[in-house]
């Protein structure tokens, strides 16, 4: 028997759609804004908090302790996965990785940006193994320090690995297989270590890590950023410690220069810049969550493709957890003569989903070009508006994972006390029902949060369309119908996600 979570009630969805319609009318008839100076708030400006934040930013100890905790937990996951019970709901590897970490990670991005990357256990293990230093600057001779080949210097490798991992997660079912979960964890360590041993800086974080790149793109919508306190200080800096590192501190792992940093995408929040800056000119700042995707982030072709694929895979994620998904795949399998685990049919499904979302976006890009009063290339419009995909994917990702986190979060204490699940038996149906009923917050609160997230995602998408339309396709102040295709894309994807959220969702384990 398959356990499902109830979907978002119809009335809630209709209310969100009505609000969306009002926003669309407003967006079409009110002039889009020009470039605005958004206010930010540096943590160093707050008395006491400023001092504490400065201390935490400049001391390597806090980061080292957090890394150590993460590495211990990570090793525990590997041990539990390899040597513990194969029953997923009784094993720490599957519960901690998929129910808590994977679901919780996406929420941490909104509040803490790419903080996960700073304490990432596979990167920490790779660094300790290759550079043989726990926190101080490593000898350059420990790595071959080669440059990443030009063909790989984009987010395409990360995107391909990301699609592969999604395939493994949803197609091969590693989320319910502790052994496979541990094997994937080991694979991450191997990839990070080999990359660090061969290539300069942290090429794995910048080009290959699918988790890091997803965090990077989503952190464009985060409320925090690591930026210079005074841009003039950076402009006059001759030594560029943030880029080159100092005597004791490693250089920026992804090769960023603080003075020209405009987006969070490749920042790993490691704090090397703040520790190495001789002028103590780097600080965490609070900001509007939409500022970066709306106007600061610069469009790039490969990044645009990653963002569209991210949206497609997020939607696909939700689709595979619908009760009707199995029937669809079963029908497809019979059509193409697939049998067994139906992996060919699943692969066709994931390819089709990526294709449909990309084709929908491409069609709207063509329509935008036709309506545009200025000559713009398709590639330029494709890259410029791809940021619209970010809030749509992020909002649905969070709303979907709220279900997992709040309805399936129970049971963590039991696996922490017995990580390997030694001597345990599978959950009975009664226990599954009890866990299902044991929610962290009430169902109504969950629906409110999900609705707010979906609406917020749509509002940010509309802000992006309005600002970027004005900045690229229609530089006059008049609101234009030129925005309509992109608005249709944002509305279409949001309605598709709302429809998915209305359906009962199959429990992960």
């Amino acid at each position, binding site marked *: 028997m398959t356990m499902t979570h109830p979907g978002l009630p119809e009335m809630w969805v209709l209310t969100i759609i009505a609000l969306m319609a009002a926003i669309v009318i407003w967006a079409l008839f009110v002039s889009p804004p020009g470039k605005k100076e958004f206010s930010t708030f540096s943590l160093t400006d707050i008395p006491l908090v400023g001092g504490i934040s400065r201390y935490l930013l400049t001391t390597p100890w806090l980061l080292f302790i957090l890394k150590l905790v993460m590495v211990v937990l990570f090793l525990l996951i590997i041990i539990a996965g*390899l040597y513990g019970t194969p029953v997923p709901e009784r094993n720490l590897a599957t519960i901690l990785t998929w129910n808590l970490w994977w679901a919780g990670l996406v929420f941490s991005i909104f509040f803490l940006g790419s903080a996960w990357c700073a304490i990432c256990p596979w990167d920490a293990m790779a660094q300790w193994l290759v550079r043989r230093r726990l926190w101080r600057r490593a000898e350059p001779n420990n790595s071959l320090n080669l440059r990443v080949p030009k063909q790989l210097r984009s987010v395409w490798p990360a995107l*391909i690995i990301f699609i*592969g991992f999604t*395939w493994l997660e949803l197609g091969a079912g590693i989320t319910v297989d502790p052994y496979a979960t541990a094997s994937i964890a*080991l694979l991450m360590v191997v990839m990070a270590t080999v990359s660090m041993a061969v290539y300069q800086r942290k090429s794995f974080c910048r080009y290959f890590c699918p988790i890091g790149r997803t965090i990077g793109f989503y952190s464009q919508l985060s409320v925090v950023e690591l930026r210079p306190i005074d841009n003039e200080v950076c402009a006059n800096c001759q030594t560029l410690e943030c880029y080159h590192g100092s005597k004791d501190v490693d250089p920026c792992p992804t090769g960023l220069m603080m003075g020209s940093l405009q987006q969070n995408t490749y920042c790993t929040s490691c704090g090397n810049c703040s520790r190495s800056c001789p002028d103590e000119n780097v600080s965490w700042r609070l900001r509007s969550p939409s500022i970066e995707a709306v106007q600061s982030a610069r469009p790039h*072709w490969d990044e645009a493709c990653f963002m569209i694929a991210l949206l497609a895979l997020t939607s696909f994620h939700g689709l595979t957890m619908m009760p009707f998904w199995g029937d669809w795949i079963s029908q497809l399998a019979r059509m193409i003569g697939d049998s*067994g685990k139906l*992996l060919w049919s699943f692969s066709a499904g994931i390819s089709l989903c990526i294709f449909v979302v990309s084709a929908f976006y491409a069609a709207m890009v063509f329509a935008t070009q036709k309506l545009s009063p200025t000559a713009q*290339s398709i590639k330029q419009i494709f890259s410029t508006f791809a940021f619209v995909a970010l809030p749509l994917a992020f909002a649905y990702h969070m709303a979907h994972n709220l279900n997992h986190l709040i309805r399936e979060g129970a049971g963590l204490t039991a696996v922490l006390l017995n990580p390997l699940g030694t001597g345990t038996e599978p959950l009975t149906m009664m226990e599954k029902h009890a866990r299902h009923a044991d929610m962290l917050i009430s169902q109504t609160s969950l629906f409110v949060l999900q609705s707010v997230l979906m609406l917020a995602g749509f509002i940010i998408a509309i802000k992006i369309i309005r600002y970027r339309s004005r900045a690229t396709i229609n530089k006059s102040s008049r609101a234009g119908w030129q925005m309509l295709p992109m608005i249709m894309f944002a509305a279409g994807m949001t309605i598709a996600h709302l429809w998915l959220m209305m359906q009962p969702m199959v429990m992960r384990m």
Partner: protein
Amino acid sequence: MWLNGLIRKLLLLVLLISGFAALNASAHHVLGRPAYSLNEDSNTPPSMQVETQVGDFSINYMVYPAFPKAGERGRINLYASTLDTGESFNGTVRFTVRDDSWFAAEEEVLGTQQPDDFVFRQGFVFNEDGDYIITAEFESGGEPYIIDFPLRVGELSAVGPPGIAVAIILLTLVAVSVLQRRKRLGSRVRKAKQEETL
């Protein structure tokens, strides 16, 4: 131009995804995910259950106990029904077993079973722990149907993934160390030669 590039990249993605499928389709474990369950209303031990489909048939396969051990009796229950009408399969099913390893391919017949209340029940006792592949074969409408199911007996040997990971990491670190040492030595020799010529 850009469209050609996009099409090429999309094709590459589809090929990669298909490649993943091909990798697994050629491996043994191509069937449905195992699910473990325990019925609180009966005194039967926990079971491992796999649902899958082959051609026009939906297959449900259960193993009692969920974690069989060498020397202990176990049982496989198989139920097949047509996907269109839900009608239960009523013929005979032949069960065979082979070792799930790279070299051992010797097959052993477990038995041929008639339905018992539409369920095909096959008992087994394994002498050694290990990973096995159970094959169920039946015929319907003149068409043969063959399904492979993985079955683990005893504790899993978990040397593989950590062993491979440690080996790759060690090899990489040693290779990098050797290369860097040669590089340093080379530069020292060049420097010495330069000093000599000066």
